[in-house]
């Protein structure tokens, strides 16, 4: 009951931060630090949601947060096309790609495997809630070692919560300027923020960031 009120007033990201910050231990970055990637290949996500638009609605939002952390991110649409032309027509097949081939043919240090657990809008009596839930695994292409894994969630409620400032901030973070038919696309930045930027649980800074290597 309290949790539900909290979700409605502050948005999923804050809840995710609270949960991640208080309830669980910091992520163990030992492997990540031992094999720090410069470049990350993000594959189109596996889509466990019922919305077919999820795969590409999400894929087109993932470059920015990772690049702004300081990594080279391969051009997602070019990679998608390249893999399709090389016998991998679906995200499912792409996720089976041999890691040594990714290193050899594309030169990526690490691959990010994303799974969309939820993507879409639930309509309730008065409000509707658009939710994107993702989990991701970052794997070193040369050793196959898991460098990092995490989960993220973004939620936007329409109908208003009564908390105008909370609504505005949540809405701004989602950057959900183009709602329309694919509102979940606009919520992806929020899900990505909680996935990649949550302190002690997100990705570390990459080599193009001025913060690179300064983390404890």
């Amino acid at each position: 009951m309290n949790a539900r009120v909290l979700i409605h007033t502050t948005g999923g990201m804050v809840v995710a931060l609270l949960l991640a910050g208080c309830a669980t231990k910091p992520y163990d970055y030992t492997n990540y630090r031992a094999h720090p990637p410069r470049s990350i290949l993000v594959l189109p996500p596996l889509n466990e949601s019922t919305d077919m638009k999820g795969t590409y609605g999400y894929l087109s939002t993932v470059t920015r947060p990772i690049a702004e952390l300081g990594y080279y991110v391969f051009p997602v649409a070019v990679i998608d096309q390249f893999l399709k032309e090389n016998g991998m027509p679906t995200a499912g097949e792409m996720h089976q790609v041999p890691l040594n081939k990714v290193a050899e043919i594309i030169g990526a240090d690490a691959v990010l495997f994303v799974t969309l657990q939820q993507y879409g809008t639930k309509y309730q009596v008065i409000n509707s809630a658009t939710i994107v839930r993702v989990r991701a695994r970052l794997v070193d292409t040369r050793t196959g070692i898991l460098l990092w894994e995490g989960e993220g969630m973004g939620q936007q409620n329409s109908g208003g919560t009564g908390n105008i400032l909370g609504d505005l901030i949540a809405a701004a973070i989602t950057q959900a300027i183009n709602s329309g038919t694919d509102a979940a696309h606009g919520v992806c930045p929020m899900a990505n923020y909680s996935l990649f930027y949550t302190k002690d649980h997100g990705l570390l800074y990459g080599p193009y960031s001025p913060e690179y290597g300064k983390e404890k």
Partner: protein
Amino acid sequence: MSQVSRWVWLPVLVILLTGCASPTLYTWGHYEDLIYASYAAPGSVSPEMQVGKLEEDYQKARAANKRMPPGFHAHLGYLYFQLGKSDQARQEFETEKAEFPESAVFMDRLLANLNRP
């Protein structure tokens, strides 16, 4: 009404939140929006139109002495390739490689494909 005012304020808040907190590393322009559009409504964004938008983004960024994000020039090169403009495609792949040496293996592969008859 409240819906309208929310959308009006949104860009302002986005600028405040993202602009003040920390400067971004790159100028993003239409890069991700066009990727989304090309999948969500392919008919609405021809490669010509996408090239036009991206070149415009690039000119603006250059004038402001800002960097384009990783993948931008590779993506632009790929669009030129789709339009049959191999010289421009080659130039963009080379730019990507020069800007981001991490892309060299992949760019060399795309360049080799361009040179194939």
